[in-house]
């Protein structure tokens, strides 16, 4: 049983059963039943495409409200670097960080600062002997889940390093305990400010055996107006930010990959492109590469559905914000840059789950597939979606699996009706 808790939620009242999400779901996880969308939880990878595309705003990402932090004595904010790209004319990250303190947080730990550590240690990892190349980034939770479910052969290529959010949570907790030894673990709350619904699921479900150190995930769009009101211009703003160009670069595609300081990398974004790249890597037909960065969202994390701004505008803003920053502010000594600390790794990935399997028995699967092939020939092949399945092929599968009725095909049904009327007439 897959008990993965997803973060994509459907408001049945608002869904009118149009076929937009149906047609664009990259894993064909959606069907329309009884005039509204139904998500197959085993297939869903939380990519957020359906949230992005829904005209009726019926698909939403479920995440917490800021009030979920009230139960903690010491509240820590972990802003994703994408947050910095949401504001016009922002010339200093400190406005954002101080703003977070003003809206009720006790401390702020930048995810971009943790990202610079991850970048430094990724460079060490790439030089480690026996590492399977190309190394695939573990930062995008959608990609990690997708590989786990569909590309088991690439499991060993995924770098077993925790993503920046997780490292930030770990270091933020350490800092809190150092500054306030009287605090117990339960009194410290860590809140990730996220552009990404998949991070919500990741925090809820963990990662293989790993449990997240983040307590609450709120969306950038949810705190945006509260935060912008707290970001007042000031000449004596306390200096808080400790991230450089590399850390902020993680918000956009290519930022993570260029930080490995090696030109043999590939960076791709957009879930369909990601799937195509993975298919090709699996076939072994790629140039010699050291590192692969894959982002489910177009543009990278700035394209996350829980952010406020157009990803390209956000990217342009981050470019100017990064411009006069130091390359990196990770402050690791030469000695520290040689070894990756033990706590930075995770052990296991989601297990391969052949969800698309027709039956447990090969003979039965073959018989079913043969039926599917025959049925496809009878279907119109125009993939109209009116039956509630994304393609005629998917519909044929549903019929053979007894999850749909052949009469749901309007076109086949109309022909049947015409024949009947002709006979009657």
């Amino acid at each position, binding site marked *: 049983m897959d008990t993965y808790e997803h973060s994509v939620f459907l408001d049945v009242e608002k869904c009118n059963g149009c076929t937009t999400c149906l047609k664009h779901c990259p894993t064909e996880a959606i069907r329309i039943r009884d005039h509204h969308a139904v998500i197959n939880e085993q297939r869903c990878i939380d990519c957020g495409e359906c949230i992005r595309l829904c005209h009726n705003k019926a698909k939403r990402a479920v995440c917490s409200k800021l009030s979920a932090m009230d139960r903690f004595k010491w509240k820590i904010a972990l802003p994703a670097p994408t947050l910095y790209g949401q504001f016009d004319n922002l010339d200093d990250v400190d406005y954002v960080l101080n703003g977070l303190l003003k809206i009720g947080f006790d401390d702020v730990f930048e995810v971009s600062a943790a990202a610079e550590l991850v970048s430094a240690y990724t460079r060490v990892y790439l030089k480690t002997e026996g590492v399977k190349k190309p190394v695939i980034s573990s930062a995008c939770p959608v990609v990690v889940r997708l590989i786990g479910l569909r590309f088991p052969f690439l499991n060993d290529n995924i770098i077993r390093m925790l993503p920046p959010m997780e490292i930030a949570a770990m270091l933020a907790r350490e800092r809190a305990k150092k500054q306030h030894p009287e605090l117990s673990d339960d009194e410290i709350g860590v809140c990730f400010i996220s552009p990404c619904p998949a991070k919500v699921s990741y925090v809820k479900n963990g990662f293989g055996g790993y449990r997240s150190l983040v307590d609450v995930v709120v969306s950038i769009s949810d705190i945006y107006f509260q935060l912008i009101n707290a970001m007042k211009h000031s000449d004596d703003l306390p200096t808080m930010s400790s991230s450089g160009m590399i850390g902020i670069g993680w918000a956009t595609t290519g930022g993570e990959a260029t930080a490995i300081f090696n030109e043999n990398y590939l960076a791709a974004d957009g879930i369909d492109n990601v799937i195509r790249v993975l298919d090709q890597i*699996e*076939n072994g*037909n790629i140039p010699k590469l050291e590192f692969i960065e894959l982002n489910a969202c177009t543009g990278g994390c700035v394209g996350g559905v829980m952010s406020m701004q157009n990803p390209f505008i956000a990217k342009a803003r981050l470019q100017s914000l990064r411009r006069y920053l130091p390359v990196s502010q990770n402050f690791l000594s030469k000695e520290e840059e040689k070894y990756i600390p033990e706590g930075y790794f995770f052990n296991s990935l989601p297990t391969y789950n052949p969800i698309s*399997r027709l039956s447990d028995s*090969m003979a039965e699967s*073959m*018989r079913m597939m043969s039926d599917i092939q025959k049925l496809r020939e009878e279907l119109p092949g125009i993939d109209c979606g009116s039956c509630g399945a994304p393609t005629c092929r998917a519909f044929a599968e549903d019929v053979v699996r007894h999850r749909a009725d052949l009469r749901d095909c309007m076109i086949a049904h109309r022909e049947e009706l015409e024949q009947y009327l002709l006979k009657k007439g």
Partner: protein
Amino acid sequence: MSEALTFHFDVDGENFTSAGQASVQVKKNLRQLGLTPEIIRRVSIAMYEGEINMVIHAGGGMADVTVNEDTIEIVLTDHGPGIKDIDQAMQEGFSTAPDSIRQLGFGAGMGLPNMKRYTDHMHIASTVGVGTTITMQVNIPK
């Protein structure tokens, strides 16, 4: 014993972006049949290399995949120039691909050797000026 399943694909010539589509589709089908990742990977690599070969050398062709309970057979048929010396073509690094193709990252001379490596049986029948038929088999362990 259930009836064999067959899949037929036309491989479009002269187009690298569509080359590899048959192999992706076969991969999907084999996944649905519940084959192990290892078998799926071997079949899809052999298919992929074969498809690319047909695009580079023969202007396209056909791929026919037959799935039995104990074996998967892939037959690639083209009406290209044919292979003059099959033994030579099987050597790693040997390639007759033109420079323009090599610049795209193909033509490393690993296509046929890889197809042999990833399958349990491979046979090439080729007549110069007529075309080539490659038959490959991957056994499914019990």
